[in-house]
């Protein structure tokens, strides 16, 4: 893959737009919302990121990552035009066909917006298929919000209810959004749980406090979806790293409903 475009989203966080070096491969490439890939930096290794762009947009894929270890540091040093490797798409998908005609509520925190972004764009590109779309997204501070331009775009759309928030203390003087942790802001927004699917993604601590809020609002576990992050290497269910209970997060996930999560041992 060639790195076509690099966007600096937040301190330490970048988005890469990648195009296939082989155009034929690029045109034939298909994936579904929720899937991930293994991205290679030759000389450093491989890392797992979700595909953060929508499958409705052809010819390129995008990934967003935070610089944290060896491979992501190697990625951060690359310039536009560089070559990286890609294996994928792996994993299961968000069942968007099953969601037709329903309301969608997206709840995300910080660097967990990327896995949701592909679903959001997918839903927006097929807007007629869904009823109300609500997005609750928060980060530690204004600077840490990712996809700032897209947030503005979504906010401007009349067919999307976007609520952004930053943690108390993370606001700037001209911040017009909410101030508060994502779970409490979600409670305030109080989306209707009838005929609605909730998609949640965020750091473990955010998920821990979001689930009870959704429960309170009347969401059933089989209508709450999340995507798990686990240490992965092979991505195809062989190396054993992401094995949780009898499932492999790379093959049976990373998308799980809350019902499925509850049947898993707490080892993720």
């Amino acid at each position, binding site marked *: 893959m060639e790195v076509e475009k690099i966007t600096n989203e937040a301190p330490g966080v970048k988005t890469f737009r990648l195009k296939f070096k082989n155009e034929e491969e690029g045109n034939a490439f298909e994936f579904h919302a929720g899937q991930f890939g293994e991205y290679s930096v030759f000389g450093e*290794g491989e890392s797992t990121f979700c595909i953060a762009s929508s499958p409705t947009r052809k010819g390129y894929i995008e990934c967003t990552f935070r610089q944290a*270890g*060896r491979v992501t*540091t190697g990625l951060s040093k690359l310039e536009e035009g560089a070559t990286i490797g890609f294996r994928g798409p792996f994993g299961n998908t968000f069942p968007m066909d099953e969601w037709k005609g329903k309301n969608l509520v997206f709840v995300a925190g910080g660097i967990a917006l990327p896995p949701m972004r592909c679903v959001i764009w997918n839903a927006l590109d097929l807007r007629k298929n869904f009823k109300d779309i609500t997005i609750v997204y928060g980060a530690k501070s204004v600077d840490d919000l990712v996809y700032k331009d897209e947030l503005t775009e979504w906010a401007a759309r009349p067919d999307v209810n976007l609520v952004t928030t930053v943690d108390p203390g993370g606001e700037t003087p001209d911040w017009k959004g909410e101030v508060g942790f994502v779970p409490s802001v979600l409670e305030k927004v109080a989306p209707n749980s009838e005929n609605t699917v909730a998609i949640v993604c965020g750091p473990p601590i955010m998920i821990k406090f979001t689930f009870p809020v959704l429960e309170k609002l009347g969401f059933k576990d089989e209508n709450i979806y999340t995507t798990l992050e686990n240490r992965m290497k092979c991505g195809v269910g062989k190396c054993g790293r992401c094995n949780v209970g009898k499932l492999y997060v790379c093959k049976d996930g990373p998308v799980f409903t809350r019902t499925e999560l509850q049947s898993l041992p707490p080892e993720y």
Partner: protein
Amino acid sequence: MNKLIEKATSLLQEGVVTKVIGYEEGTEKPRPFFCEKAEDTSKLIYNSRCINNLAVYLTKPELLGTGKVAVVATLPTLRSIVQLAFENQLKEDKLVILTVTDSEEVIEFAGFAEIETYLKDFKLKIDQKEQDLIDKLEGMSKEERWTFWVEELSQCFKCYACRAACPMCYCTRCVVEVNCPQWVQPWASPLGNIEWQINRAMHLAGRCTGCGSCAEACPVGIPIDLLTRKMMEDLGEEFGVVPGQPNKNGNVLSTFKPEDKENFIR
């Protein structure tokens, strides 16, 4: 044995310690035993077949818990305890250190200093089989010795049992587990395996107390303790290092002082 069992029972019953780390009979040979109940102390044994170095457990907080712990220490374990104490890895007030003499008397040490004094009366023992191998190696030329180690270490499959069994290998992240940068390759390969053992010998230089747990733990039977032991001998000659009697000036190869000479750096 009765005196040991008596002591362990009273320590547990009186709530002085939450567990006694000792030995019990295993499948073919004695193995480490974590005794938490007074009624289990009858399983405790102590004899020359007890060769695991129990000091390796004393740097694992999840095993020690918050209370006091007793450890039944053989001579090699005592030497490791002294070295670990010197490296600030042990809390004197959280440990009850016991040993059993040849006449089956139980000694409870008042502190690390007393252990050091006690150890002065005992010389490091090497069994005949090891001595034979050492003599064989000493009789080889440099090239023959290299060939010997290349062949032995080609068997190694990097299970890191040597590191896991060594009480001195308590680094929370070993050098081989660092990937930024990747100093030492973690996978098995003939030269990579030699690189790993040389690394161990260097990191243990002046710290190894010659317990032989590394070679004992090695599933494929590579006599790697000879490498660290040779290093220990050399440092004994060059720096007067004695296992079980830490040099008050610091570890020979891992202590740095601002006033160290730097005239060899050109």
